[in-house]
């Protein structure tokens, strides 16, 4: 189960929108293989009857009143924007 190929490293990096250099692919293949080998330990246990935990508290449906509230002024919204075109974030073409 453990071990990850170069192609898999590149595939995962693409899914996660991470550009990697050739050297990084080699380095991460080695490191991720060691980490995956260690975390594969969870597969030793037979837990078919144990339900999963997504969250440590048993809270259900934390409702809030649906009341409009003032939002940030646009100049603050765009204060950290790398590029702006009037009321839009400007990005390179898709």
């Amino acid at each position: 189960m453990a071990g990850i190929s170069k192609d898999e490293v590149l595939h995962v990096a693409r899914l996660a929108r991470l550009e990697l250099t050739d050297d990084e692919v080699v380095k991460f293949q080695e490191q991720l293989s060691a980490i995956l080998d260690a975390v594969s330990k969870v597969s030793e246990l037979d837990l078919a009857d144990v339900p999963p935990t997504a969250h440590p508290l048993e809270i259900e449906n934390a409702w809030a009143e649906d009341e409009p509230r003032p939002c940030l002024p646009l100049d603050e919204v765009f204060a950290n924007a790398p590029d702006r075109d009037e009321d839009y974030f400007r990005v390179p073409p898709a």
Partner: protein
Amino acid sequence: MIDVLRLTAEGAKQLLDAREISGAELFAAYAERDDDLHAFLYRCDDPGGDGIPIALKDVIGTKGVPTTAGSKILESYVPVYDSTVAANCKRHGLRLLGKTNTDEFAMGSSTENSAFGPSRNPWDPSRVPGGSGGGSAAAVSGGLAPWALGSDTGGSIKQPSALCGNVGLRPTYGTVSRFGVVAFASSLDQVGPVAKNVRDCAFLYSIIAGRDANDTTTVEVPEVELPAAQDLKGMRIGVPREMNEAEGIEPGVSAAVRKTIELAESLGAEVGECSLPRSVDYGVACYYLVAPAEASSNLARYDGARYGLRSDGDDFREMVMATRHDGLGDEPKRRIMIGTYALSSGYYDAYYGKAQRVRTMIRREHAEVFEKFDLIVSPTSPTVAFAIGEKAGNPLAMYLNDLLTIPSCMAGLPGLNIPCGLSEGLPVGLQLIGPQFAENTLFRAGHALEQALAFDVVPERLR
């Protein structure tokens, strides 16, 4: 003369109330000290007023004050709103000394993953202060702040407190708002206090705890009681075998913890052995699947579009990939890729799904132990502070440093670190863990032990 190395926040308040010192003098006493530990990424000017100064870990959003999370991708980011915890500090008059260093996105156990260089341990500057909240812990023990806030996902408050010799609380999951705090793994992240003693720690917790409409995972919290009792009469303390005999615990760490357990008995506690058979064995593996999975999702927001770094790219996708390549360090990249892998089609059941079931098993094991005991104890870290560079090249060795802090984090339980002795001249931390919402029990036990231990929190070389 203000003794910044020894003065507690409670002591500072008494001096201010008696008008023996002014707010400006108090702030300056910390702000003017040379930060040769690199505890801070950013230091603030005195905003005025006469409240107690505080340092905040740089994952905590502060309006108008840079918040980088130790990452190049947020190097120029200045929040336009306050996190709820920062707002709560302001409401109580606390004045911001600055933002403390952290491993990038709080991912690490030494601050060596900070994009801006590591912090140093006040007891021995050639060693790490722990992580990820090493900056906050170093600031408190190095006399650069009377107290501080950290954040803890798998041990990032407790472990640095252990390595720097101060008191740190990871609160029960859901007691402190994360609104405005840079997210790492949202089913685990908690903000909590770092202080010189348990009473300060409890008081700071009372300032930040409580339900927040902006974080729907928060709940109503029992009223905080400042601890005063000197004894442990009636307290049932469990000693989980696996957490006290785990491979890799240094003999000096074991010895200091064992002595403290005997001390607890002499203070009237009923001490008994217990077992968490699989929590320690499987905790690290479970954590390093769940936390990266959540991180891969949380860190997807750093895309160069709305804030933070943007690198050049011919089209949107290339821009995003170049931005993340240039702006994120190796540790976030590793965790994003592990998480993406664990969540991807074909691997989900074997990795992430399985880890979630292991998490239930860990919760159940702890719940069973707390039917018989009020709290359990163990070393916080298997080792004292290690040398800068010693583990930096081996991510897996670094992960194993979290062996003893991780299980209770997975179960959403509160944990308190108190310093309990020295090994090789460096502080040893004792971890007290209780059931959910048992902070007052931890404070009571921690305070009684602290009084009896009389550990000197000032690093020997600075006395």
